[in-house]
């Protein structure tokens, strides 16, 4: 890999008593789609806004595209595209007018009609913003970030609150941008979004990076390809130690009143688990298995759910 698109070291941001970002290191490589995955309040937005030059860090160094916000703000703004977590674009402008307004701030960039094609809003270019659906508004917001033909695109929770179809349409836009060799930094609390879009993911919790790697590496790090989730009803709970001794179990973690077992060989572990439960007269309130996901990574690392 060549030059890093984003480099930050020891990033700290405190508001009065609260520490939002607590010594965070990141390196985003040029040409990759990098995801910050974490629950609400983990410090993702604060981190991104510092990287976007909208918020000043309390401590730490930030380098974006080899430049620094305190020295090169204007040049840097010409080369990045930003979509904030929430922006209400003016209701009574047309799609085309909004895009043209944003285009006018940049000295170079794409034609507005080209950008509207990219985000699938060509038919809507004469519609007022207030007439757009949530997904269309979000695509317009991303379109406004693309008018400058940026080298680096920031997307803060781009699909939060959207229906599945709108989410897929937005993912297509991001993948199209990435296919041109550009860099994307996105935050999300959806594991499927991170798995689908991101080359690498940093799992963020309480202002720190607690895990970093490709989605496959992260999933593999919990030790099993499958996850068994089990809950007990009548107060008879099985000890972590005896669960860990079941065949094929790689890791045991507890979250939300249940237990999840990361396992290699489902067909061996499951009968053994049921046998143990019967032996102890423990009644199961819940039993489910699924392929391990980034959600399980988060649960394993923090003992909490992503969407808590």
């Amino acid at each position, binding site marked *: 890999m060549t030059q890093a698109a984003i480099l930050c070291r020891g990033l700290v941001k405190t508001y009065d008593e609260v520490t939002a970002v607590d010594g965070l290191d990141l390196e985003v490589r040029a040409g990759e789609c990098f995801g910050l995955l974490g629950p609400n309040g983990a410090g993702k937005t604060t981190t991104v806004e510092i990287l976007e*030059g909208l918020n000043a860090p309390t401590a730490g160094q930030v380098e974006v595209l080899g430049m620094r916000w305190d020295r090169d703000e*204007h040049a840097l703004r010409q080369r990045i595209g930003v979509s*904030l977590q*929430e922006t209400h674009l*003016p209701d*009574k402008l047309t799609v085309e007018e909004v895009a043209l307004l944003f285009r*006018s701030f*940049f000295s170079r960039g794409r034609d507005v009609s080209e950008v509207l094609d990219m985000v699938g809003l060509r038919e809507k270019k004469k519609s007022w913003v207030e007439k757009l659906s949530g997904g269309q508004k979000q695509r317009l917001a991303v379109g406004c970030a693309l008018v*400058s033909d940026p080298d680096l695109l920031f997307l803060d929770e781009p699909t939060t609150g959207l229906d599945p179809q709108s989410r897929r349409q937005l993912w297509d836009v991001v993948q199209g941008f990435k296919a041109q060799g550009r860099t994307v930094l996105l935050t999300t609390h959806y594991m499927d979004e991170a798995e689908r879009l991101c080359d690498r993911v940093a799992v963020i919790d309480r202002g720190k990076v607690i895990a970093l790697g490709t989605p496959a590496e992260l999933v593999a790090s919990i030790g099993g390809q499958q996850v068994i989730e089990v809950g007990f009803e009548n107060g008879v709970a099985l000890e972590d130690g005896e669960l860990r001794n079941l065949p094929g179990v790689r890791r045991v973690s507890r979250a939300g009143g249940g237990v999840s077992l990361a396992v290699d060989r489902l067909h061996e572990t499951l009968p053994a688990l049921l046998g143990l439960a019967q032996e102890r007269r423990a009644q199961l309130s819940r039993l489910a298995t699924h392929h391990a996901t980034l959600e399980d990574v988060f649960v394993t690392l923090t003992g909490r759910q992503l969407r808590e």
Partner: protein
Amino acid sequence: MTPNPLWELTLTRLRLFFREPSAVFWTFGFPLALSLALGIAFRNRPPEPVRIGVSGSGASDRLVRGLESADGLRVSHFRDEAEVRKALRTGGVDAAVLVRGAAEEPALPATGVGRRPEHPIEILHDPTRPESRVARALAADAIQRAAGRADAVAVAERAVTEPGSRYIDFLIPGLIGMNVMSSGMWGIGYVVVEMRTRKLLKRLVATPMSRAQFLWSFVLMRSAFLFIELPALLVFGWFAFKVGVAGSLALLVAVALLGALCFSGIGLLVASRAQNTQTVSGIINAVMLPMFIGSGVFFSTARFPDWLQKPLRLLPLTALNDSMRAVMIDGAGIAAVARPAALLAVLAAASFALALRIFRWR
């Protein structure tokens, strides 16, 4: 071809304004409706006669005839003193004349002690009502003349109605000033804060947009509106009430433009820190209220005591109203409006510079 950002920003402001029908009404329709209503309420009528009530015997004698034939008096007769007093009390007449014969019994029962000696003629008036004082003076004069008083010196009289002395002549420049102020304050202050709460400001500063150009776009929008607001009120004033412009139209436009710039700057200033629209509404009202009252929109600042005159003259709306009245009514030239115009220019530059400095973009 890269579009020009200042042009696009200004165009955006104009589009958003004209696509909001209620904003258009409050900026253009409301002042017209207000000046129509006030113009009708305070229209000048022909001078009204002063009303005198007369009671008492001998109502046919020459003194009463003298009252009846005097100019500008309208005499009505009442049966007795109680009735004419009632009419005076309720505003039916402005003054009452009681005529008593020499041997006549008092119409009201004597209360005993401290009764005043009787005169043949008595005038009742209420000194707290200006029209009643006028009625007293005119009635006394008519009675004395009828009784044979001659003028000691001949005085020539001429009735004069100065052009521009009607209330509507005073009102139209004041309404223009008020409109320039309130549409600047609301049209900029409120809109900017709304953009802040909607995170649009934050989104804009994430681009290389020039912050000064962003603020300038509001100033340009306000200046453009002036060329709609000002002609609308002037044309309306001319056709509805024959309110003209005595001085130079170009000077009037220049003064109004300075006022629009000044209130654009103040509008940006009040919006520079506020985090929500309730706060900015409060600030706007607090800033405008003293000027609504003290800057001579509806009544002259001369009504305030002397010690207030100097501070009132420092208010931007006072400066704007005074110079517009000077041009519209007195036909004043540049020299006469130089001081208030300079005040407007200084306030405009200072408020714009301060707003740009302390503006909260997030």
